[in-house]
Protein backbone atom coordinates (compact mmCIF):
# COMPACT_ATOMS: atom_id res chain seq x y z
CA UNK A 1 0.00 0.00 0.00
CA UNK A 2 1.63 3.18 -1.11
CA UNK A 3 0.14 5.64 1.26
CA UNK A 4 1.98 8.57 -0.27
CA UNK A 5 1.23 10.80 2.60
CA UNK A 6 3.57 9.23 5.13
CA UNK A 7 6.84 9.34 3.28
CA UNK A 8 6.38 12.29 0.97
CA UNK A 9 7.70 14.73 3.52
CA UNK A 10 11.24 13.40 3.23
CA UNK A 11 11.13 13.56 -0.52
CA UNK A 12 12.16 16.32 -2.83
CA UNK A 13 9.00 17.45 -4.57
CA UNK A 14 8.66 19.69 -7.58
CA UNK A 15 9.53 23.27 -6.73
CA UNK A 16 7.57 26.02 -8.45
CA UNK A 17 6.54 29.54 -7.60
CA UNK A 18 3.55 30.23 -5.41
CA UNK A 19 1.71 31.83 -8.29
CA UNK A 20 2.06 28.63 -10.31
CA UNK A 21 0.70 26.50 -7.48
CA UNK A 22 -2.18 28.90 -7.13
CA UNK A 23 -2.93 28.74 -10.87
CA UNK A 24 -3.10 24.94 -10.82
CA UNK A 25 -5.53 25.03 -7.92
CA UNK A 26 -7.55 28.02 -9.05
CA UNK A 27 -10.16 26.40 -11.37
CA UNK A 28 -11.01 23.74 -8.81
CA UNK A 29 -11.11 26.12 -5.86
CA UNK A 30 -13.24 28.72 -7.63
CA UNK A 31 -15.76 26.17 -8.87
CA UNK A 32 -16.07 24.41 -5.53
CA UNK A 33 -16.17 27.71 -3.68
CA UNK A 34 -18.92 29.21 -5.81
CA UNK A 35 -21.06 26.23 -6.69
CA UNK A 36 -20.58 23.91 -3.72
CA UNK A 37 -19.41 25.91 -0.73
CA UNK A 38 -21.41 29.07 -1.28
CA UNK A 39 -24.81 27.30 -1.31
CA UNK A 40 -23.83 25.49 1.90
CA UNK A 41 -22.89 28.75 3.64
CA UNK A 42 -25.96 30.45 2.24
CA UNK A 43 -28.16 27.59 3.48
CA UNK A 44 -26.65 28.09 6.91
CA UNK A 45 -27.37 31.80 6.76
CA UNK A 46 -30.90 31.25 5.41
CA UNK A 47 -31.71 28.95 8.31
CA UNK A 48 -31.48 31.93 10.69
CA UNK A 49 -33.77 34.17 8.60
CA UNK A 50 -37.46 34.20 7.77
CA UNK A 51 -36.95 34.15 3.99
CA UNK A 52 -39.95 32.96 1.97
CA UNK A 53 -40.84 33.44 -1.67
CA UNK A 54 -43.07 36.43 -0.89
CA UNK A 55 -40.89 38.44 1.46
CA UNK A 56 -37.62 38.24 -0.46
CA UNK A 57 -37.18 42.04 -0.22
CA UNK A 58 -38.06 42.50 3.42
CA UNK A 59 -36.83 39.37 5.17
CA UNK A 60 -34.44 39.51 8.11
CA UNK A 61 -32.57 37.50 10.69
CA UNK A 62 -34.71 35.80 13.31
CA UNK A 63 -32.10 33.82 15.21
CA UNK A 64 -33.00 30.28 16.14
CA UNK A 65 -36.70 30.69 15.36
CA UNK A 66 -36.77 28.09 12.59
CA UNK A 67 -34.92 25.52 14.68
CA UNK A 68 -37.21 26.19 17.59
CA UNK A 69 -40.24 25.71 15.39
CA UNK A 70 -38.76 22.49 13.95
CA UNK A 71 -37.92 20.89 17.27
CA UNK A 72 -40.38 22.22 19.83
CA UNK A 73 -43.67 22.76 18.01
CA UNK A 74 -46.18 20.03 18.85
CA UNK A 75 -47.27 19.46 15.26
CA UNK A 76 -43.74 19.45 13.84
CA UNK A 77 -43.06 17.09 10.96
CA UNK A 78 -39.44 16.60 11.93
CA UNK A 79 -39.74 13.52 14.12
CA UNK A 80 -42.27 11.80 11.89
CA UNK A 81 -40.04 12.29 8.83
CA UNK A 82 -36.85 11.21 10.62
CA UNK A 83 -38.68 8.25 12.16
CA UNK A 84 -39.98 7.05 8.78
CA UNK A 85 -36.53 7.52 7.27
CA UNK A 86 -34.78 5.59 10.05
CA UNK A 87 -37.33 2.78 9.79
CA UNK A 88 -36.63 2.64 6.06
CA UNK A 89 -32.87 2.61 6.64
CA UNK A 90 -33.09 -0.19 9.22
CA UNK A 91 -35.36 -2.41 7.11
CA UNK A 92 -33.32 -1.85 3.94
CA UNK A 93 -29.94 -2.45 5.57
CA UNK A 94 -31.25 -5.61 7.22
CA UNK A 95 -32.22 -7.02 3.83
CA UNK A 96 -29.01 -5.80 2.17
CA UNK A 97 -27.05 -7.81 4.73
CA UNK A 98 -29.33 -10.85 4.64
CA UNK A 99 -29.43 -11.15 0.85
CA UNK A 100 -25.86 -9.98 0.33
CA UNK A 101 -24.62 -12.55 2.81
CA UNK A 102 -26.67 -15.48 1.49
CA UNK A 103 -25.85 -14.77 -2.16
CA UNK A 104 -22.17 -14.38 -1.32
CA UNK A 105 -22.14 -17.66 0.61
CA UNK A 106 -23.89 -19.42 -2.29
CA UNK A 107 -21.48 -17.96 -4.84
CA UNK A 108 -18.52 -18.95 -2.69
CA UNK A 109 -19.59 -22.59 -2.67
CA UNK A 110 -17.27 -24.42 -5.03
CA UNK A 111 -19.70 -27.33 -5.42
CA UNK A 112 -22.22 -25.13 -7.22
CA UNK A 113 -22.07 -25.55 -10.99
CA UNK A 114 -22.16 -22.58 -13.32
CA UNK A 115 -20.80 -20.08 -10.81
CA UNK A 116 -19.90 -17.69 -13.62
CA UNK A 117 -23.50 -17.55 -14.81
CA UNK A 118 -25.00 -17.07 -11.36
CA UNK A 119 -22.52 -14.37 -10.54
CA UNK A 120 -23.24 -12.31 -13.66
CA UNK A 121 -27.00 -12.79 -13.28
CA UNK A 122 -27.02 -11.73 -9.64
CA UNK A 123 -24.93 -8.63 -10.27
CA UNK A 124 -27.09 -7.28 -13.12
CA UNK A 125 -28.97 -4.78 -10.90
CA UNK A 126 -25.66 -3.09 -10.15
CA UNK A 127 -25.02 -2.21 -13.77
CA UNK A 128 -28.56 -1.05 -14.47
CA UNK A 129 -29.15 2.72 -14.40
CA UNK A 130 -31.04 3.32 -11.15
CA UNK A 131 -33.23 6.22 -12.27
CA UNK A 132 -34.64 4.27 -15.19
CA UNK A 133 -35.11 1.07 -13.21
CA UNK A 134 -37.10 3.02 -10.62
CA UNK A 135 -39.60 3.96 -13.32
CA UNK A 136 -39.69 0.36 -14.55
CA UNK A 137 -40.38 -0.90 -11.04
CA UNK A 138 -43.13 1.65 -10.65
CA UNK A 139 -44.91 0.02 -13.55
CA UNK A 140 -44.26 -3.47 -12.22
CA UNK A 141 -46.14 -2.37 -9.07
CA UNK A 142 -49.10 -0.90 -10.96
CA UNK A 143 -52.33 -2.21 -9.44
CA UNK A 144 -54.27 -3.04 -12.61
CA UNK A 145 -51.64 -3.56 -15.27
CA UNK A 146 -48.43 -4.33 -13.41
CA UNK A 147 -47.11 -7.85 -14.00
CA UNK A 148 -46.69 -8.61 -10.29
CA UNK A 149 -50.40 -8.34 -9.61
CA UNK A 150 -51.20 -9.98 -12.95
CA UNK A 151 -49.09 -13.01 -12.11
CA UNK A 152 -50.81 -13.06 -8.72
CA UNK A 153 -54.16 -13.18 -10.50
CA UNK A 154 -53.10 -16.28 -12.42
CA UNK A 155 -52.56 -18.09 -9.11
CA UNK A 156 -55.10 -16.49 -6.79
CA UNK A 157 -58.01 -15.59 -9.06
CA UNK A 158 -59.30 -12.41 -10.67
CA UNK A 159 -59.94 -10.58 -7.41
CA UNK A 160 -56.28 -10.63 -6.42
CA UNK A 161 -54.31 -7.42 -6.18
CA UNK A 162 -51.79 -5.93 -3.81
CA UNK A 163 -52.32 -2.16 -3.51
CA UNK A 164 -48.60 -1.41 -3.79
CA UNK A 165 -48.33 2.31 -4.34
CA UNK A 166 -51.68 3.44 -2.98
CA UNK A 167 -51.54 2.17 0.62
CA UNK A 168 -48.94 3.27 3.21
CA UNK A 169 -47.37 -0.12 3.88
CA UNK A 170 -47.74 -1.22 0.26
CA UNK A 171 -45.73 1.81 -0.84
CA UNK A 172 -43.21 1.30 1.94
CA UNK A 173 -42.64 -2.34 1.04
CA UNK A 174 -42.41 -1.41 -2.64
CA UNK A 175 -39.60 1.10 -2.12
CA UNK A 176 -37.83 -1.35 0.20
CA UNK A 177 -37.96 -4.02 -2.53
CA UNK A 178 -36.57 -1.64 -5.14
CA UNK A 179 -33.78 -0.42 -2.91
CA UNK A 180 -32.85 -3.96 -1.95
CA UNK A 181 -32.84 -4.89 -5.63
CA UNK A 182 -30.51 -1.98 -6.39
CA UNK A 183 -28.15 -2.41 -3.46
CA UNK A 184 -27.70 -6.06 -2.54
CA UNK A 185 -25.11 -6.68 -5.32
CA UNK A 186 -22.76 -4.25 -3.60
CA UNK A 187 -22.96 -6.36 -0.43
CA UNK A 188 -22.60 -9.56 -2.43
CA UNK A 189 -19.34 -8.26 -3.87
CA UNK A 190 -17.97 -6.92 -0.59
CA UNK A 191 -18.82 -10.09 1.33
CA UNK A 192 -17.71 -12.41 -1.46
CA UNK A 193 -14.37 -10.59 -1.59
CA UNK A 194 -13.96 -11.05 2.15
CA UNK A 195 -15.05 -14.70 2.03
CA UNK A 196 -12.53 -15.48 -0.66
CA UNK A 197 -9.71 -14.29 1.54
CA UNK A 198 -10.84 -16.58 4.37
CA UNK A 199 -8.49 -19.60 4.27
CA UNK A 200 -9.97 -22.52 2.39
CA UNK A 201 -10.68 -24.83 5.37
CA UNK A 202 -12.42 -22.04 7.26
CA UNK A 203 -14.40 -21.01 4.22
CA UNK A 204 -15.61 -24.55 3.69
CA UNK A 205 -16.58 -24.81 7.29
CA UNK A 206 -18.96 -21.93 6.81
CA UNK A 207 -20.65 -23.64 3.91
CA UNK A 208 -21.61 -26.79 5.72
CA UNK A 209 -25.34 -27.13 5.98
CA UNK A 210 -27.21 -28.13 9.08
CA UNK A 211 -27.21 -27.18 12.72
CA UNK A 212 -23.45 -27.26 13.27
CA UNK A 213 -22.89 -25.08 10.27
CA UNK A 214 -24.79 -22.18 11.77
CA UNK A 215 -22.54 -22.22 14.80
CA UNK A 216 -19.43 -22.42 12.62
CA UNK A 217 -20.75 -19.51 10.67
CA UNK A 218 -21.44 -17.24 13.61
CA UNK A 219 -18.31 -18.11 15.53
CA UNK A 220 -15.73 -18.30 12.72
CA UNK A 221 -16.83 -16.74 9.46
CA UNK A 222 -18.84 -13.81 10.72
CA UNK A 223 -16.10 -12.32 12.93
CA UNK A 224 -13.70 -12.57 9.99
CA UNK A 225 -16.15 -10.76 7.74
CA UNK A 226 -16.94 -7.98 10.18
CA UNK A 227 -14.10 -5.61 9.16
CA UNK A 228 -15.42 -5.67 5.60
CA UNK A 229 -19.10 -5.53 6.46
CA UNK A 230 -19.08 -2.76 9.06
CA UNK A 231 -17.91 0.14 6.85
CA UNK A 232 -20.08 -1.07 3.97
CA UNK A 233 -23.10 -1.14 6.28
CA UNK A 234 -22.54 2.32 7.70
CA UNK A 235 -21.98 3.81 4.25
CA UNK A 236 -25.10 2.15 2.88
CA UNK A 237 -27.10 3.40 5.82
CA UNK A 238 -25.90 6.93 5.06
CA UNK A 239 -26.75 6.57 1.37
CA UNK A 240 -30.18 5.16 2.17
CA UNK A 241 -30.87 7.92 4.70
CA UNK A 242 -30.40 10.52 1.97
CA UNK A 243 -32.05 8.51 -0.77
CA UNK A 244 -34.13 10.61 -3.09
CA UNK A 245 -34.49 9.66 -6.74
CA UNK A 246 -35.63 6.06 -6.49
CA UNK A 247 -38.26 6.65 -3.84
CA UNK A 248 -39.47 9.93 -5.27
CA UNK A 249 -39.94 8.50 -8.76
CA UNK A 250 -42.00 5.61 -7.41
CA UNK A 251 -44.17 7.11 -4.65
CA UNK A 252 -43.55 10.90 -4.69
CA UNK A 253 -43.38 10.45 -0.91
CA UNK A 254 -47.00 9.31 -0.71
CA UNK A 255 -49.46 8.15 0.25
CA UNK A 256 -50.79 10.67 2.74
CA UNK A 257 -52.20 9.06 5.88
CA UNK A 258 -53.62 12.16 7.54
CA UNK A 259 -54.04 15.71 6.34
CA UNK A 260 -51.53 17.30 8.71
CA UNK A 261 -48.75 14.77 8.29
CA UNK A 262 -46.26 14.21 5.46
CA UNK A 263 -46.68 11.14 3.28
CA UNK A 264 -45.77 7.72 4.55
CA UNK A 265 -42.65 7.35 2.36
CA UNK A 266 -41.73 11.02 2.56
CA UNK A 267 -38.15 10.50 3.70
CA UNK A 268 -35.93 13.46 4.63
CA UNK A 269 -34.73 14.43 1.15
CA UNK A 270 -38.18 14.03 -0.36
CA UNK A 271 -39.70 16.11 2.43
CA UNK A 272 -37.29 18.96 1.66
CA UNK A 273 -37.73 18.66 -2.05
CA UNK A 274 -41.51 18.76 -1.90
CA UNK A 275 -41.51 21.79 0.38
CA UNK A 276 -39.43 23.71 -2.18
CA UNK A 277 -40.56 22.42 -5.56
CA UNK A 278 -43.81 20.62 -4.81
CA UNK A 279 -46.66 21.70 -7.08
CA UNK A 280 -48.93 22.31 -4.08
CA UNK A 281 -46.48 24.66 -2.36
CA UNK A 282 -47.65 28.21 -3.03
CA UNK A 283 -45.14 30.02 -0.86
CA UNK A 284 -42.00 27.94 -0.23
CA UNK A 285 -40.50 28.77 3.15
CA UNK A 286 -36.84 28.62 2.10
CA UNK A 287 -35.53 29.58 5.53
CA UNK A 288 -37.45 26.89 7.38
CA UNK A 289 -36.30 24.20 4.96
CA UNK A 290 -32.73 25.50 5.24
CA UNK A 291 -32.90 24.91 9.01
CA UNK A 292 -34.20 21.41 8.31
CA UNK A 293 -31.28 20.87 5.90
CA UNK A 294 -28.73 22.00 8.47
CA UNK A 295 -30.13 19.51 11.00
CA UNK A 296 -29.89 16.71 8.42
CA UNK A 297 -26.33 17.81 7.69
CA UNK A 298 -25.46 17.46 11.38
CA UNK A 299 -26.89 13.93 11.42
CA UNK A 300 -25.22 12.89 8.16
CA UNK A 301 -21.96 14.62 9.01
CA UNK A 302 -21.61 12.84 12.34
CA UNK A 303 -22.48 9.49 10.76
CA UNK A 304 -19.89 10.04 8.02
CA UNK A 305 -17.30 11.10 10.56
CA UNK A 306 -18.05 8.03 12.65
CA UNK A 307 -17.80 5.77 9.61
CA UNK A 308 -14.49 7.28 8.60
CA UNK A 309 -12.86 7.05 12.03
CA UNK A 310 -14.15 3.48 12.46
CA UNK A 311 -12.73 2.57 9.07
CA UNK A 312 -9.38 4.13 9.87
CA UNK A 313 -8.94 2.50 13.24
CA UNK A 314 -9.82 -0.85 11.72
CA UNK A 315 -7.36 -0.39 8.94
CA UNK A 316 -4.57 0.42 11.38
CA UNK A 317 -5.52 -2.57 13.48
CA UNK A 318 -5.36 -4.81 10.45
CA UNK A 319 -1.99 -3.53 9.35
CA UNK A 320 -0.45 -3.75 12.80
Amino acid at each position, binding site marked *: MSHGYDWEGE*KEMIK*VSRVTIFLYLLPMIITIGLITLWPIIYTFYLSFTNYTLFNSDTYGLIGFGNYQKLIFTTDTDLFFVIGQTLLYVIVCVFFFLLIGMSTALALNNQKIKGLGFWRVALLVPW*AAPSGITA*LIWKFLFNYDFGPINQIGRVFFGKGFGIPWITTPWGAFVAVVIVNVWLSYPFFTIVILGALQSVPQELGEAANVDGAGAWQRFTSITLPL*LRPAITPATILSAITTF*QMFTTVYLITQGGPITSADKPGFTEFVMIYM*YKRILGSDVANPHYAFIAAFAIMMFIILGSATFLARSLGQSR*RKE*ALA
Partner: protein
Amino acid sequence: MSDQSMNASTRSEAVSTAQRIVPAKARTEEGSLALTLQRRFLPGFGLGLIYLFLTLMTIFALFPVYYVIQASLAGGQNLYTTDLHILPANPTLDNYVYAFTQLPLLNWIGNTFIVCSLTTIIGLAFSTTGAYALSRFRFNGRDATLNGLLAIQAFPALLALPAYYLLLNSLGLINNLAGLVIVYSAGTLVFGAWNIKGYFDTLPVELEQAAMIDGASHFQAFWRVTLPLATPAIAASAIFMFIGGWNEYALANLVLNANDTAGSNLTFILGLYSLQSDYHTPWGIFAASSVIISVPLIALFLYAQRFFKSGLTIGGVKG
Protein backbone atom coordinates in the same frame (compact mmCIF):
# COMPACT_ATOMS: atom_id res chain seq x y z
CA MET B 1 -24.16 13.18 -8.38
CA SER B 2 -21.50 13.47 -5.76
CA ASP B 3 -23.25 10.69 -3.88
CA GLN B 4 -22.80 8.48 -6.88
CA SER B 5 -19.11 9.06 -7.21
CA MET B 6 -18.58 8.76 -3.49
CA ASN B 7 -20.40 5.52 -3.57
CA ALA B 8 -18.12 4.16 -6.22
CA SER B 9 -15.03 5.08 -4.31
CA THR B 10 -16.27 3.71 -1.03
CA ARG B 11 -17.18 0.51 -2.79
CA SER B 12 -13.65 -0.02 -3.95
CA GLU B 13 -12.39 0.95 -0.54
CA ALA B 14 -14.62 -1.53 1.20
CA VAL B 15 -13.67 -4.32 -1.20
CA SER B 16 -9.96 -3.72 -0.85
CA THR B 17 -10.21 -3.37 2.91
CA ALA B 18 -11.92 -6.71 2.97
CA GLN B 19 -9.19 -8.37 0.99
CA ARG B 20 -6.47 -6.83 3.06
CA ILE B 21 -7.80 -7.43 6.53
CA VAL B 22 -9.20 -10.89 6.59
CA PRO B 23 -6.13 -13.08 6.10
CA ALA B 24 -4.25 -11.24 8.84
CA LYS B 25 -6.76 -12.38 11.42
CA ALA B 26 -7.41 -15.87 10.18
CA ARG B 27 -5.18 -17.72 12.55
CA THR B 28 -7.15 -20.45 14.19
CA GLU B 29 -6.87 -24.19 14.34
CA GLU B 30 -10.53 -25.01 13.98
CA GLY B 31 -10.11 -26.12 10.37
CA SER B 32 -9.86 -29.87 10.88
CA LEU B 33 -12.89 -30.02 13.14
CA ALA B 34 -14.82 -28.07 10.56
CA LEU B 35 -13.89 -30.54 7.83
CA THR B 36 -15.16 -33.55 9.81
CA LEU B 37 -18.34 -31.69 10.50
CA GLN B 38 -18.74 -30.96 6.86
CA ARG B 39 -18.28 -34.59 5.84
CA ARG B 40 -20.84 -35.77 8.33
CA PHE B 41 -23.70 -33.79 6.83
CA LEU B 42 -25.08 -34.98 3.54
CA PRO B 43 -24.40 -32.21 1.05
CA GLY B 44 -27.12 -33.16 -1.47
CA PHE B 45 -30.08 -31.66 0.33
CA GLY B 46 -28.22 -28.47 1.12
CA LEU B 47 -27.00 -28.08 -2.44
CA GLY B 48 -30.56 -28.39 -3.74
CA LEU B 49 -31.62 -25.58 -1.45
CA ILE B 50 -28.76 -23.42 -2.65
CA TYR B 51 -29.75 -23.97 -6.28
CA LEU B 52 -33.34 -23.12 -5.43
CA PHE B 53 -32.20 -19.95 -3.68
CA LEU B 54 -29.94 -18.95 -6.59
CA THR B 55 -32.78 -19.53 -9.04
CA LEU B 56 -35.20 -17.39 -7.05
CA MET B 57 -32.61 -14.64 -6.67
CA THR B 58 -31.86 -14.73 -10.39
CA ILE B 59 -35.54 -14.32 -11.16
CA PHE B 60 -35.66 -11.38 -8.73
CA ALA B 61 -32.54 -9.83 -10.25
CA LEU B 62 -33.51 -10.28 -13.89
CA PHE B 63 -37.28 -9.90 -13.82
CA PRO B 64 -37.42 -6.12 -14.41
CA VAL B 65 -34.87 -6.43 -17.19
CA TYR B 66 -36.70 -9.31 -18.83
CA TYR B 67 -40.06 -7.64 -18.47
CA VAL B 68 -39.03 -4.32 -19.94
CA ILE B 69 -37.41 -6.02 -22.95
CA GLN B 70 -40.40 -8.23 -23.68
CA ALA B 71 -42.81 -5.30 -23.25
CA SER B 72 -40.76 -3.18 -25.62
CA LEU B 73 -41.16 -5.85 -28.31
CA ALA B 74 -44.89 -6.38 -27.82
CA GLY B 75 -46.77 -4.61 -30.57
CA GLY B 76 -50.28 -3.55 -31.34
CA GLN B 77 -51.30 -2.71 -27.81
CA ASN B 78 -53.67 -0.09 -26.58
CA LEU B 79 -52.81 2.16 -23.65
CA TYR B 80 -52.21 -0.66 -21.24
CA THR B 81 -52.79 -4.33 -21.65
CA THR B 82 -53.98 -6.89 -19.14
CA ASP B 83 -52.89 -9.87 -21.24
CA LEU B 84 -49.95 -11.63 -19.71
CA HIS B 85 -47.39 -13.13 -22.08
CA ILE B 86 -44.12 -14.82 -21.32
CA LEU B 87 -42.88 -13.80 -24.74
CA PRO B 88 -44.71 -11.24 -26.89
CA ALA B 89 -47.16 -12.94 -29.26
CA ASN B 90 -46.13 -10.88 -32.29
CA PRO B 91 -42.74 -9.38 -31.62
CA THR B 92 -42.26 -6.11 -33.47
CA LEU B 93 -39.99 -3.10 -33.42
CA ASP B 94 -42.93 -0.68 -33.72
CA ASN B 95 -42.36 0.72 -30.24
CA TYR B 96 -38.74 1.52 -31.09
CA VAL B 97 -39.73 3.16 -34.35
CA TYR B 98 -42.37 5.20 -32.56
CA ALA B 99 -39.97 6.24 -29.81
CA PHE B 100 -37.45 7.50 -32.34
CA THR B 101 -39.85 9.21 -34.70
CA GLN B 102 -42.74 10.49 -32.57
CA LEU B 103 -41.06 11.37 -29.28
CA PRO B 104 -38.35 13.97 -28.63
CA LEU B 105 -36.19 11.01 -27.64
CA LEU B 106 -33.19 12.07 -29.70
CA ASN B 107 -33.40 15.55 -28.19
CA TRP B 108 -33.40 14.08 -24.70
CA ILE B 109 -30.47 11.80 -25.48
CA GLY B 110 -28.66 14.71 -27.11
CA ASN B 111 -29.25 16.98 -24.10
CA THR B 112 -28.13 14.33 -21.66
CA PHE B 113 -25.10 13.54 -23.77
CA ILE B 114 -24.09 17.20 -24.02
CA VAL B 115 -24.58 17.82 -20.32
CA CYS B 116 -22.70 14.68 -19.27
CA SER B 117 -19.85 15.24 -21.72
CA LEU B 118 -19.32 18.86 -20.73
CA THR B 119 -19.54 17.84 -17.06
CA THR B 120 -16.88 15.21 -17.62
CA ILE B 121 -14.58 17.54 -19.55
CA ILE B 122 -14.82 20.35 -17.01
CA GLY B 123 -14.65 17.93 -14.11
CA LEU B 124 -11.51 16.28 -15.47
CA ALA B 125 -9.77 19.53 -16.44
CA PHE B 126 -10.29 21.11 -13.03
CA SER B 127 -9.71 18.03 -10.91
CA THR B 128 -6.53 16.83 -12.67
CA THR B 129 -4.83 20.23 -12.32
CA GLY B 130 -5.98 20.51 -8.71
CA ALA B 131 -4.90 16.95 -7.99
CA TYR B 132 -1.50 17.61 -9.54
CA ALA B 133 -0.90 20.60 -7.30
CA LEU B 134 -2.01 18.64 -4.25
CA SER B 135 0.19 15.69 -5.12
CA ARG B 136 3.35 17.35 -6.41
CA PHE B 137 3.68 20.74 -4.77
CA ARG B 138 4.19 21.57 -1.11
CA PHE B 139 2.50 24.69 0.16
CA ASN B 140 0.82 26.11 3.23
CA GLY B 141 -2.79 25.08 3.43
CA ARG B 142 -2.31 21.86 1.47
CA ASP B 143 -3.56 19.66 4.29
CA ALA B 144 -6.35 22.10 4.97
CA THR B 145 -7.42 21.94 1.33
CA LEU B 146 -7.43 18.14 1.30
CA ASN B 147 -9.44 17.90 4.51
CA GLY B 148 -11.74 20.71 3.46
CA LEU B 149 -12.59 18.79 0.28
CA LEU B 150 -13.56 15.76 2.34
CA ALA B 151 -15.66 17.82 4.71
CA ILE B 152 -17.58 19.32 1.80
CA GLN B 153 -18.28 15.83 0.53
CA ALA B 154 -20.29 15.11 3.68
CA PHE B 155 -22.82 17.75 2.64
CA PRO B 156 -25.05 16.31 -0.10
CA ALA B 157 -25.84 18.87 -2.80
CA LEU B 158 -29.56 18.21 -2.38
CA LEU B 159 -29.49 19.63 1.14
CA ALA B 160 -28.62 23.03 -0.28
CA LEU B 161 -31.66 22.90 -2.51
CA PRO B 162 -33.14 26.28 -1.49
CA ALA B 163 -29.77 27.96 -1.94
CA TYR B 164 -29.22 26.33 -5.33
CA TYR B 165 -32.58 27.43 -6.51
CA LEU B 166 -32.04 31.03 -5.45
CA LEU B 167 -28.48 31.06 -6.83
CA LEU B 168 -29.37 29.69 -10.26
CA ASN B 169 -32.47 31.81 -10.46
CA SER B 170 -30.52 35.00 -9.82
CA LEU B 171 -27.96 33.98 -12.48
CA GLY B 172 -30.72 33.31 -15.01
CA LEU B 173 -29.63 29.68 -15.31
CA ILE B 174 -32.97 28.09 -14.52
CA ASN B 175 -34.27 26.23 -17.57
CA ASN B 176 -30.82 26.26 -19.07
CA LEU B 177 -28.60 23.25 -19.75
CA ALA B 178 -25.56 25.34 -18.81
CA GLY B 179 -26.93 25.63 -15.28
CA LEU B 180 -27.04 21.88 -15.03
CA VAL B 181 -23.49 21.50 -16.36
CA ILE B 182 -22.20 23.93 -13.74
CA VAL B 183 -23.94 22.18 -10.87
CA TYR B 184 -22.91 18.71 -12.01
CA SER B 185 -19.27 19.54 -12.69
CA ALA B 186 -18.83 21.16 -9.29
CA GLY B 187 -20.27 17.97 -7.84
CA THR B 188 -17.62 15.80 -9.53
CA LEU B 189 -14.59 17.73 -8.33
CA VAL B 190 -14.08 16.40 -4.81
CA PHE B 191 -14.24 12.79 -5.91
CA GLY B 192 -12.14 13.50 -9.01
CA ALA B 193 -9.45 15.44 -7.17
CA TRP B 194 -9.05 12.89 -4.39
CA ASN B 195 -9.13 9.89 -6.68
CA ILE B 196 -6.67 11.26 -9.23
CA LYS B 197 -4.41 12.72 -6.52
CA GLY B 198 -4.28 9.27 -4.94
CA TYR B 199 -3.08 7.84 -8.24
CA PHE B 200 -0.57 10.61 -8.89
CA ASP B 201 0.92 9.83 -5.46
CA THR B 202 1.75 6.33 -6.64
CA LEU B 203 3.68 7.59 -9.67
CA PRO B 204 7.37 8.37 -9.04
CA VAL B 205 8.01 12.10 -9.03
CA GLU B 206 11.50 11.39 -10.41
CA LEU B 207 10.01 10.89 -13.87
CA GLU B 208 8.83 14.49 -13.99
CA GLN B 209 12.01 15.76 -12.37
CA ALA B 210 14.00 13.99 -15.08
CA ALA B 211 11.82 15.56 -17.75
CA MET B 212 12.33 18.97 -16.19
CA ILE B 213 16.10 18.50 -16.08
CA ASP B 214 15.86 17.82 -19.81
CA GLY B 215 14.24 21.20 -20.21
CA ALA B 216 10.52 20.55 -19.89
CA SER B 217 8.41 23.13 -18.06
CA HIS B 218 6.32 21.99 -15.09
CA PHE B 219 3.25 22.11 -17.26
CA GLN B 220 4.88 20.00 -19.97
CA ALA B 221 5.95 17.50 -17.31
CA PHE B 222 2.37 17.37 -16.06
CA TRP B 223 0.84 17.15 -19.53
CA ARG B 224 3.30 14.81 -21.25
CA VAL B 225 4.56 12.64 -18.40
CA THR B 226 2.09 12.47 -15.54
CA LEU B 227 -1.23 12.57 -17.34
CA PRO B 228 -0.51 9.71 -19.77
CA LEU B 229 0.70 7.54 -16.89
CA ALA B 230 -2.46 8.26 -14.92
CA THR B 231 -4.81 7.05 -17.68
CA PRO B 232 -6.50 4.33 -15.56
CA ALA B 233 -7.43 6.79 -12.80
CA ILE B 234 -8.54 9.41 -15.29
CA ALA B 235 -10.65 6.90 -17.22
CA ALA B 236 -12.33 5.56 -14.09
CA SER B 237 -13.04 9.07 -12.82
CA ALA B 238 -14.38 10.15 -16.21
CA ILE B 239 -16.80 7.25 -16.33
CA PHE B 240 -18.21 8.01 -12.90
CA MET B 241 -18.55 11.68 -13.80
CA PHE B 242 -20.38 10.78 -16.99
CA ILE B 243 -22.70 8.11 -15.57
CA GLY B 244 -23.58 10.22 -12.51
CA GLY B 245 -25.32 12.84 -14.60
CA TRP B 246 -27.11 10.28 -16.75
CA ASN B 247 -29.11 9.07 -13.77
CA GLU B 248 -29.64 12.27 -11.84
CA TYR B 249 -33.21 13.43 -11.39
CA ALA B 250 -33.54 15.91 -8.52
CA LEU B 251 -31.14 18.64 -9.64
CA ALA B 252 -32.11 18.18 -13.27
CA ASN B 253 -35.73 18.73 -12.33
CA LEU B 254 -34.78 21.75 -10.25
CA VAL B 255 -32.84 23.34 -13.09
CA LEU B 256 -34.74 22.30 -16.20
CA ASN B 257 -38.31 21.57 -15.31
CA ALA B 258 -39.08 24.68 -13.30
CA ASN B 259 -41.75 25.79 -15.76
CA ASP B 260 -43.15 22.32 -16.19
CA THR B 261 -42.89 22.60 -19.95
CA ALA B 262 -42.60 18.96 -20.93
CA GLY B 263 -40.67 19.34 -24.12
CA SER B 264 -37.42 19.02 -25.93
CA ASN B 265 -35.12 20.69 -23.41
CA LEU B 266 -35.22 17.82 -20.90
CA THR B 267 -32.60 15.30 -19.99
CA PHE B 268 -33.48 11.70 -20.55
CA ILE B 269 -34.62 10.80 -17.07
CA LEU B 270 -36.94 13.82 -16.93
CA GLY B 271 -38.39 12.98 -20.31
CA LEU B 272 -38.90 9.37 -19.35
CA TYR B 273 -40.63 10.44 -16.17
CA SER B 274 -42.96 12.77 -18.05
CA LEU B 275 -43.73 9.90 -20.44
CA GLN B 276 -44.73 7.64 -17.62
CA SER B 277 -46.79 10.12 -15.68
CA ASP B 278 -48.77 10.98 -18.77
CA TYR B 279 -51.28 8.21 -19.20
CA HIS B 280 -51.60 8.59 -22.93
CA THR B 281 -48.32 6.92 -23.67
CA PRO B 282 -48.50 3.12 -23.98
CA TRP B 283 -46.20 1.21 -21.67
CA GLY B 284 -44.51 -0.52 -24.62
CA ILE B 285 -43.18 2.80 -25.86
CA PHE B 286 -41.88 3.71 -22.43
CA ALA B 287 -40.24 0.28 -22.28
CA ALA B 288 -38.61 0.72 -25.68
CA SER B 289 -37.28 4.14 -24.67
CA SER B 290 -35.83 2.70 -21.47
CA VAL B 291 -34.05 -0.03 -23.38
CA ILE B 292 -32.65 2.44 -25.90
CA ILE B 293 -31.13 4.54 -23.15
CA SER B 294 -29.95 1.73 -20.89
CA VAL B 295 -28.06 -0.33 -23.44
CA PRO B 296 -25.24 2.16 -24.15
CA LEU B 297 -24.93 2.91 -20.44
CA ILE B 298 -24.65 -0.73 -19.41
CA ALA B 299 -22.20 -1.35 -22.24
CA LEU B 300 -20.09 1.57 -21.05
CA PHE B 301 -20.22 0.31 -17.47
CA LEU B 302 -19.17 -3.21 -18.42
CA TYR B 303 -16.41 -1.93 -20.69
CA ALA B 304 -15.21 0.40 -17.96
CA GLN B 305 -14.89 -2.22 -15.27
CA ARG B 306 -11.34 -2.97 -16.36
CA PHE B 307 -10.34 0.47 -15.10
CA PHE B 308 -12.06 0.21 -11.75
CA LYS B 309 -9.59 -2.09 -10.09
CA SER B 310 -6.52 0.00 -10.84
CA GLY B 311 -8.14 3.39 -11.31
CA LEU B 312 -9.95 3.93 -8.03
CA THR B 313 -7.55 4.96 -5.32
CA ILE B 314 -9.49 7.12 -2.94
CA GLY B 315 -7.80 7.75 0.39
CA GLY B 316 -4.46 6.54 -0.92
CA VAL B 317 -5.59 2.93 -0.71
CA LYS B 318 -4.16 1.30 -3.75
CA GLY B 319 -2.83 -2.24 -4.06
